[in-house]
């Protein structure tokens, strides 16, 4: 049993925020007496990540994903529970720990706006105390993988969003961190660039063996990169396991697509008809009845083709969160 790269046990973060009603009177009152409200951003979160794993960290906005990542990278102090990353307590922010991790925030930039990315990279080189050889080597590798060549000499403010993100990611990886936290690394990027970044993350993980914890709103990112997902909602753990098991656990339905010769058949006795086009019917049936319905369809109707599918992953995730809310 190897030691986990990331370990959380009952980790909690509660924010105290001033509570105030709107209006002049309430504003005046709050001058003298502030009512505070506790918001549980992260509520007794427990999970482990093995070295080298890529795990998708999912949840709707405000679920506590970013708060968790910030605690694990040492920016936030938890209000309860324990956590270690590579054996260190992150919020002590010890230098050997900081040298081994990185946090990429898709919505924020660390690169100096007015100068070329190459200059910011040099600054990171001296901050992380990298030898010239190591630095050159890593930079060449990142340049090749991310196709940075033409971007490095341009002032960052002249780069497009996607180009800037590639440089941000490179800047965050120059010191070859063993643990990589990625918070929405593909946000706002077009599909091609998303795919590019995704392929890079997979390749980086393969080459470096780094542990990656990734949040994303794009299920395609998660489906392509992560075998395992952790789902949280209202700061609580909802699911931790294989992506395919998530689908199993949270979908009560399967989709059956049947191609018939007869375009006008009425299939509503078999299941809920979601779509019908030129004799191609899409049915939604309870999971337990899938086999039975399929059997009946094949027996009763002139079926040309039949396909049983799980619903798309977005739909599953959406269902997970609405179920929880209900």
């Amino acid at each position: 049993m190897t030691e986990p790269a990331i370990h959380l046990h009952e980790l909690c973060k509660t924010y105290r925020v001033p509570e105030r009603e709107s209006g002049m009177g309430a504003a005046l009152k709050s001058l003298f007496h502030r009512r505070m409200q506790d918001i549980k951003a992260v509520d007794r979160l427990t999970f482990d990540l093995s070295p080298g794993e890529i795990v998708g960290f999912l949840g709707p906005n405000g679920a506590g994903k970013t708060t968790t990542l910030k605690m694990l990278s040492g920016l936030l102090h938890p209000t309860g529970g324990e956590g270690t990353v590579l054996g260190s307590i992150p919020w002590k922010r010890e230098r050997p720990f900081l040298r081994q991790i990185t946090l990429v925030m898709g919505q924020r930039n660390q690169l100096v706006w007015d100068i070329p990315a190459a200059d910011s990279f040099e600054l990171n080189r001296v901050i992380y105390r990298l030898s010239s050889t190591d630095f050159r080597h890593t930079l060449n590798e990142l340049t090749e993988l991310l196709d940075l060549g033409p971007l490095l000499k341009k002032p960052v403010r002249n780069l497009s969003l996607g180009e800037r993100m590639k440089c941000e990611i490179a800047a965050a990886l120059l010191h070859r961190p063993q643990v990589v936290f990625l918070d929405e690394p593909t946000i706002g990027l077009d599909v091609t660039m998303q795919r590019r970044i995704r392929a890079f993350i997979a390749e980086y993980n393969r080459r470096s063996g780094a542990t990656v914890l990734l949040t994303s709103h794009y299920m395609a990112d998660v489906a392509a990169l992560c075998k395992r997902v952790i789902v949280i909602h209202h700061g609580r753990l909802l699911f931790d396991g294989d992506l395919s098991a998530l689908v199993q656990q949270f979908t009560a339905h399967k989709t059956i697509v049947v191609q018939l010769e007869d375009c006008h058949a009425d299939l509503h006795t078999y299941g809920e008809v979601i779509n019908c086009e030129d004799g191609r019917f899409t049915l939604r049936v309870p999971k337990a009845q899938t086999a039975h319905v399929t059997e009946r369809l094949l027996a009763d109707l002139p079926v040309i083709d039949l396909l049983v599918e799980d619903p798309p992953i977005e739909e599953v995730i959406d269902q997970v969160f609405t179920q929880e809310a209900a």
Partner: protein
Amino acid sequence: MNALREILALLRLYSQQFKTTFASMVQYRISLFIWMISQILEPLVYLIVWSTVSNSSGGSVGGYTARGFAAYYLVLMLVNQFTYTWIMWEYEYRVRQGLLSFALLKPVHPIHSDISDNLSSKIITLPILMFVAAGLALIFKPTAAFNWWAGLVFIPALILAFLVRFLIEWTLALAAFWTTRVNAINQVYFILMLFLAGQIAPLTLFPNWLQIVADILPFRWMLGFPVELLLGRLSHAQALLGLAAQFAWVIISLVLIRVIWRAGVRVYSAVGA
């Protein structure tokens, strides 16, 4: 051996930061130019006002002739440039934009990039300002009782003045951790600086009790003291006492920074970075 390695690593950081600062500064030549004009105009206005006052009240005010004021304000312009920082605005912006998170992720104390950034910008702007001061000297013909001893002590006094001012302002800048209304604090600070550091007038023109207040507070040691020293207006005892006061303020502010920085980071990491 370890300490030596630390120092070398910091030196590399400082020299790299110099390149970055230089590259950023030349991107904004126009705003740099406008900013330098304001740095020149302010002491120039005081210089003209006080020269006029001095001429109309029989040639001297509080021991300063018109040309004495010229010397005072031209040296003040240079010392001010050398010790000036903009860190208090910078911090408010950093905290508001969440930029501090990146600084906290780095395995080095963020004060180092700030010190080197400040020093770098001075290396770039000082020569220009010295050139301007030399030009103004031709017009206003300053005189001072300059002596070599004062010139020699001036150098450590200037460096200490920079350190005191930088460390105090860096500490004050940390107020941004607690409040978003940093501007109010900055305003109070600049008023105090204006009167108690010798900006609006040399401190010897003030009533005695105010001079005592100025001696106790740090402001004089950030600006007025090195100016008076270079102009030969201080006795040896006053000069040495001044250096001691500066040194004490460096120690005090270092302790303050340590305490307040830790508390500030604790607040930052409690309410959301």
